[in-house]
């Protein structure tokens, strides 16, 4: 597509820049969460995460002490204290909200009735008056401060222990692994039968699997919940494993069948001629050759089960001990809507494992997607 020599370089630039912008746009949301999970509560509230790498400037105010705090020094009345907390640095201060940096640290100003106010660089202030102070609330001192960029892993420690995410992590793992392994086994045998065995009704069954691919989960919720109750399975791990196995099977059979159909006919035929039983062919030839397709489905199912909220809420209980990570996250969004250090950290823990799996096994994921969709076109 690179045509004329003159246009080429400018076009390349346009393509590079627009591609970069697009990638940036798609990455920024996750990056924001990731950065925020390493900032503490006050920092998150004080500045946007995109400003977290430079010293954050913030404005605020403190009230001075009142009459009760005043002490007499050399016949004058003095109130002392500090306007800074933590690791803030004072940039400027003022006595009106509109001008939070009217004075430099160390300067002195006169508030009404001959009260003199000094705020020093270390944050200490000194309010001096010749007459006793008469005020019910302290005077407001407005400050402009900076906080040096600071990152912490404290959020992770807190979330994993106090917020119960460690437990939820184990629960999610307990749900996910059997729910990934069992459908693969069942589907592999079925896919082999659909791909390489002759029997009446084969075309119909294959069509049924394709049809079942799109059945909305919602249709199955109420009937299965009642079925599980009647069978005595109730709400619990067994129920959710079975449910995920059922819901994952159409895709598993479909992917594996499509892949197995493409395996070389000669290999299977010659094994049959040599007297191998179907079971031997399946175990010795089909399974090893189908590894890429098995891996593709395993990743799909793993990601889907790990990330699922609906099936877990319906088929697993909602007590604190039973919640999976998406469930905890949802609960936190309700109860700690404003505590972004908790939310960001919890969210990041819950998406960390899928992201690792994603980046490590991307090749198989892409292959599976292509097998599932492009052929249909």
């Amino acid at each position, binding site marked *: 597509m690179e045509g004329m020599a003159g246009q080429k370089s400018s076009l390349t630039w346009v393509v590079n820049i627009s591609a970069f912008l697009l990638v940036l746009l798609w990455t920024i949301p996750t990056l924001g969460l990731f950065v925020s999970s390493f900032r503490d509560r006050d920092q998150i509230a004080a500045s946007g995460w995109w400003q977290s790498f430079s010293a954050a400037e913030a404005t605020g105010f403190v009230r001075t002490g009142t009459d009760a705090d005043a002490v007499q020094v050399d016949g004058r009345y003095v109130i002392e204290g500090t306007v800074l907390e933590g690791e803030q640095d004072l940039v400027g201060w003022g006595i009106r909200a509109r001008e939070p940096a009217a004075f430099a640290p160390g300067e002195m100003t006169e508030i009404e009735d001959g009260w003199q106010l000094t705020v020093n660089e270390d944050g200490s202030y000194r309010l001096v008056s010749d007459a006793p102070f008469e005020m019910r609330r302290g005077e407001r001192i407005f400050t402009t401060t900076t906080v040096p960029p600071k990152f912490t892993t404290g959020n992770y420690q807190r979330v994993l222990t106090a917020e119960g995410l460690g437990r939820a992590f184990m629960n999610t793992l307990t749900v996910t*692994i059997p729910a990934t392994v069992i459908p693969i086994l069942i589907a592999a045998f079925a896919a082999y039968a659909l791909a390489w065995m002759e029997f009446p009704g084969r075309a119909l069954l294959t069509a049924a699997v394709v049809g079942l691919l799109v059945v909305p989960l919602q249709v199955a919720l109420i009937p299965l919940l009642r079925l599980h109750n009647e069978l005595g399975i109730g709400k619990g791990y067994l129920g959710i494993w079975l449910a995920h196995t059922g819901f994952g099977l159409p895709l598993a059979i479909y992917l594996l069948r499509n892949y197995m159909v493409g395996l070389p006919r000669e290999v299977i035929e010659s094994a049959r001629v040599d007297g191998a039983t179907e079971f031997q062919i399946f175990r010795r030839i089909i399974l090893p050759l189908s590894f890429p397709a098995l891996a593709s489905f395993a990743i799909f199912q793993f990601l889907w089960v790990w990330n699922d909220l609906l099936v877990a809420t319906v088929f697993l209980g909602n007590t604190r001990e039973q919640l999976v990570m998406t469930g905890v996250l949802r609960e936190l969004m309700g109860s700690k809507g404003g505590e972004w250090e908790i939310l960001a950290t919890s969210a990041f823990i819950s998406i960390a494992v899928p992201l690792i799996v994603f980046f490590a096994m991307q090749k198989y994921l892409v292959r599976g997607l292509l097998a599932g969709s492009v052929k249909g076109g």
Partner: protein
Amino acid sequence: MELFWLAVSTIAIGVFGCVAWFWGSNMVLDAVYPPRGPRAGDNIRKASMIRPWLFLGPAILFLGLYLVYPVFDSLWRSLHNSDGSRFVGPGNYIWALGDGKFRESMLNNMLWLLVVPALATLFGLIAAQLTDRLKWGNIGKSLIFMPMAISFVGAGVIWRFIYEYREAGETQIGLLNWIVTRLGGDPQIWLTLIPWNNFFLMIVLVWIQTGFAMVILSAALRGIPEETIEAAILDGASPLQVFFRIKVPQIMGTIAVVWTTITIVVLKVFDIVFVMTNGQWGTQVLANLMYDWMFRGTPDYGRGSAIAMVLMILVTPIMIWNIRNARKEGR
């Protein structure tokens, strides 16, 4: 730790059970119809008629019990009252037509159907074309593809952080409001901003699905025969013309597949709405409405099933289209 052993033993039992079934049933079959002796030919024929069903047995059982039976059970329940004790005919469907929340959900679902597949496919196509010949194209693709691995709930948290609102004058920590205030606007509570809040929810799904569209369309673009493109360039077509007149028409089939696949995801959209607005402020959708009726104080299984059946009816055309395509290909 107890849980760990429960999980391990279940995997063991599950895997062992499956293997035992397949292996054992094959053994039995071979014992009943031994493929040797005087009637070997007859036995092999009989055994090979039964064997496929042994291989398919567990799958058919699961598919039947967990997907086929529920469709019919839902249909039955949707024609009955809240606890299934009384037949009400089409009563639940008639109720739905007159219910404000149901109408809102239908309308919103339609809106989602129009916007999300279109935008995700469009962005996917652009991303696929842009990153195609770049040196760092694969890294770029990975990053655009990444949201696919993130749960809808996780994405909900990520985007709620972007939409976060602080009162005017305070430091805006949500990216969107920060940009808006920087440009001189007033900060908004985006998620309660009717009717635009629907679009703010849709953006989340577009963000997730674009990577999927990109991966598939990128493969399709690479499959286009080089000659057609070279011929167009020789005829003096501009890069844009090559893209829109030569490339896009050749991958229309794949675009349709991507579009319908995302359509299915959109129809069933639940988690995003559930965790971000829970259907308040005019953002209700069918899947969340169904969940509502299923889990409110006194669940109404009749109405919940009716809503689920509406979803089922909506996916049916795509189901038929998929089956047709699959059969065409199988021939």
